[in-house]
């Protein structure tokens, strides 16, 4: 609905661009420092004794801003591009000097709790004010020039430069994941000892890794197309053999995974798995049927609480085993899905969202209240929920529960896949595109919608039941709105309606933050910024459904053609 010609992305040929983006960069770097991210992240080193994550963060921000400034400048004037990115780089780093100087004269700490001498020392690279500021300006100029030249290089060289740097960065950030995983494998432990020091990569390791990745990407960009083409030319049978063997290896890896990863990472995997279950359930409601449900956590809670009530000896109503409670929990989920679905049948869009949000809250508040305490345990929750057992084997450790969740995920993925191409699946998608047209084509909206709610709720209840037996206790506080919002976000980040997308989304939004736990304070900050950036840059999701990608693509094509006709008519 934009009526003006979009002049935001049109490159401009003046120094104003550099000044403007530089100002944004200045605000960004100061904000990063004052929020405390620089100080907190500086404890983890990317390359041992050379660069810490805090400094890397600032460098990254500076590079990004300078690159952006170069991109906004008119392409014909090469020198201007360099000047603009230089200005942006210097402004981004220079603002930090300003911050430090200001901090020396005024007690900033009475307002901004992170403006400590430690931070100032970090910002000046431990060099004192004069030398430090000179160094900062120099670094700013360097990253400005670096980003400017990066922009001017052809895409292939740009890629070969960025990829090694980003992989070193990634290896440094994820060192806690990589180091234990690598050292668990006999021969690879030598490699990991050589690559990593106690904190950060070793210098030689980092250089080797960068060279390795750089050469690899160069090789792939020159030879990769040939390999892909050869794959395409293989006979159908051979290709099928390759896909099936790949699939088998995948299953095998999935089965082995907890033994390779150890306790902590298995725990992370189980959490991600529970979210995948939730996501696949909500994917049916939101992704397939297009009904935005923000109260989805209610069914998760219902599944968990049903299991708890049926199995826990603490309340003493029933003493079922996990396996006999599970079908009842799922059934309860389905029934409540239908019951809560009925009142919202006629609502659309935001009204549906807010009504379901209300339902989710009502359920949580009811569970929390003293009124239902004799039955649901109130704020103390229900404890002593027995673990699931098969024979004498108990699903107690995260490594064991992983298999339970894996089985659940496989089942749910299978059902989702089958549903997607079924009659009902197509009815859901028709309803998502246009309810009125779908109804006109003879789709019974009531039963179709209720089926979507019921299926989604059933999956969610399954997830809840496993969650209850995993933790051994349930508390009302585990079931707040944030879970619903998280699940909606992971579906959309992954790509609406796409099953692999849900998994990618769950790993990105739930798995990654778990791995970076020591930065827990900034987890949601980064999460929020990533969500916004994601929606601005890649709204179709990380792994979109093929149809949806095509649709979005078509739309943009149509738009550009329309815009160009508009421009010519003007």
């Amino acid at each position, binding site marked *: 609905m934009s*009526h003006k010609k979009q002049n935001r992305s049109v490159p401009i040929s003046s120094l104003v661009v550099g000044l403007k983006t530089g100002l944004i960069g200045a605000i960004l770097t100061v904000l990063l420092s*004052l929020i405390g991210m620089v100080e907190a992240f500086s404890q983890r080193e990317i390359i041992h004794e050379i660069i810490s994550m805090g400094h890397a963060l600032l460098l990254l921000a500076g590079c990004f801003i300078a690159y952006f400034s170069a991109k906004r400048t008119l392409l014909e004037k090469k020198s201007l591009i360099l000047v603009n990115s230089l200005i942006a780089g210097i402004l981004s780093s220079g603002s930090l000097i300003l911050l430090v100087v200001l901090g020396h004269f005024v007690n900033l700490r009475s*307002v901004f*709790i992170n403006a400590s001498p430690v931070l100032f020392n970090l910002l000046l690279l431990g060099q004192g004010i004069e030398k430090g500021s000179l160094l900062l300006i120099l670094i700013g100029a360097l990253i400005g020039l670096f980003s400017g030249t990066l922009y001017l290089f052809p895409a292939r060289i740009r890629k070969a430069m960025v990829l090694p740097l980003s992989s070193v960065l990634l290896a440094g950030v994820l060192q806690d994941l990589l180091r234990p995983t690598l050292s668990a494998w006999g021969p690879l432990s030598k490699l990991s000892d050589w690559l990593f020091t106690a904190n950060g990569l070793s210098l030689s390791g980092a250089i080797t890794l960068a060279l390795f990745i750089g050469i690899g990407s160069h090789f792939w960009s020159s030879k990769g197309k040939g390999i892909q083409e050869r794959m395409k030319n293989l006979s159908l049978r051979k290709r099928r053999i390759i896909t099936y063997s790949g699939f088998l290896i995948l299953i095998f890896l999935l089965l082995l995974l907890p033994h390779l990863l150890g306790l902590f990472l298995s725990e992370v995997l189980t959490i991600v798995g529970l979210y995948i279950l939730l996501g696949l359930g909500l994917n049916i409601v939101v992704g397939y049927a297009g009904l935005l449900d923000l109260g989805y956590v209610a069914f998760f809670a219902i599944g968990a609480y049903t299991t708890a009530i049926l199995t826990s000896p603490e309340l003493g109503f029933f003493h079922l085993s996990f396996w006999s409670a599970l079908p009842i929990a799922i059934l309860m989920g389905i029934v409540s899905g239908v019951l809560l679905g009925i009142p919202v049948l006629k609502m659309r869009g935001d009204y549906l969202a807010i*009504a379901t949000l209300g339902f989710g809250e009502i359920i949580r508040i009811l569970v929390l*209240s003293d009124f239902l305490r004799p039955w649901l345990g109130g704020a103390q929750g229900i404890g002593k929920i027995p673990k699931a057992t098969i024979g004498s084997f108990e699903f107690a450790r995260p490594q064991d529960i992983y298999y339970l969740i894996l089985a659940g995920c496989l089942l749910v993925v299978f059902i989702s896949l089958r549903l997607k191409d079924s009659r009902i699946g197509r009815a859901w998608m028709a309803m998502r595109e246009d309810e009125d047209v779908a109804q006109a084509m003879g789709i019974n909206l009531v039963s179709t919608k209720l089926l979507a709610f019921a299926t989604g709720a059933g999956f969610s209840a399954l997830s809840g039941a496993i969650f209850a037996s995993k933790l051994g206790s349930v508390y009302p506080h585990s079931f707040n709105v944030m879970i619903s919002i998280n699940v909606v976000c992971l579906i959309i980040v992954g790509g609406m309606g796409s099953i692999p997308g849900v998994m990618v989304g769950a790993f990105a939004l739930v798995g990654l933050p778990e791995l970076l736990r020591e930065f827990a304070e900034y987890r949601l900050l980064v999460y929020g910024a990533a969500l916004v950036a994601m929606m601005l840059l890649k*709204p179709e999701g990380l792994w979109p459904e093929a149809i949806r990608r095509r649709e979005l693509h078509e739309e943009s094509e149509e738009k550009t053609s329309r815009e160009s006709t508009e421009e010519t008519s003007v």
Partner: protein
Amino acid sequence: MLQRIRERLTLTDMIMWVIGAVLLAMMTWGSIATIKAETYTLHHWFDFIIFGLAQGSIYALIAMGYTMVYGVLRMINFAHSEVFMSGPYTAYYVAAAFYSSGLLDQYPILCLMVIFVVAMITSSGIAFLLERVAYRPLRTAPRLIPLITAIGASFFLQYVFRGLFGSGFQAYPVVKILEGEWTFGEFRLLKFQVIVILAAALLLAALYSFIQQTKVGKAIRAVSEDKETAYLMGIDVDRMISTTFVIGGMAAGAAGVLYALMFKQVHFFMGFIPGIKAFTAAVLGGIGNIPGAMLGGIFLGLIESIGPSLFLGGLGIVAPYQLKDAIAFTMLVLVLIFRPTGILGERLAVKKA
């Protein structure tokens, strides 16, 4: 005749009516039982109503931002609760400085004005930036995408404030002239509640007349009616949308200071619950409808403060006040079931959504 009614009534409709009737019957039964039991005197009810009005008028002010933004962009601005939080949080430092220098006791009214202005400027600034950075590039995107962006922006803002100012509660300084109470015969009025109600009423009136009577207000209404046509009439649509965010932000900032004065503290997460409540209020009144948002806010505030004791107390429910949010949300669901467009809304839920 009967035949026709039977044709129009579907099973789901009947179930909905049954649910509604049961809930209504329970409410009436509870109310009668409470009144008969006479656990609460007239004083109590009076206190409940005043508290409900104070809370409700704050909700109404926040709801204005939701409803106006929904009017022009047709999106739920999830980050509005952070716009609400940012104002009083920033103004807290001004207030603390006034307090420690003793100015707050010497010139309380002037200081309060400054606090309000600072909060309103911060909130509207944040709202403006939010629209500019996060929402404007997404005007043509499918509906879900701005919603997710808003959720992301909301997290981001919350944790930026947490990072900048810390995760603890900051105690808002006590303003002496707002303490104490007035007594009228048997009834007593807490001063700050009265002042909150008056200030909110004043602001709401100002806002309403701005929207109804000024040229800019007219333009905003035109944009929320039909963007294309408004554009053709020579209205700068982008600017009007920005203005809407700024005005909504100002209302939220003022509401935030009132809220902080009422509960005497600020926290980076303080916006979440009032934000959801205010959105509920906006939907109750009919989203996109400005008088509706005011009415919905006050209605919600009253229901929350009277409801637990009136409806649930008589039913013998333990600790009914814990269920006040459940009552608020049940109210919302009931209104959405029986009048999907809200109390004053047009039939928007079906037509435009």
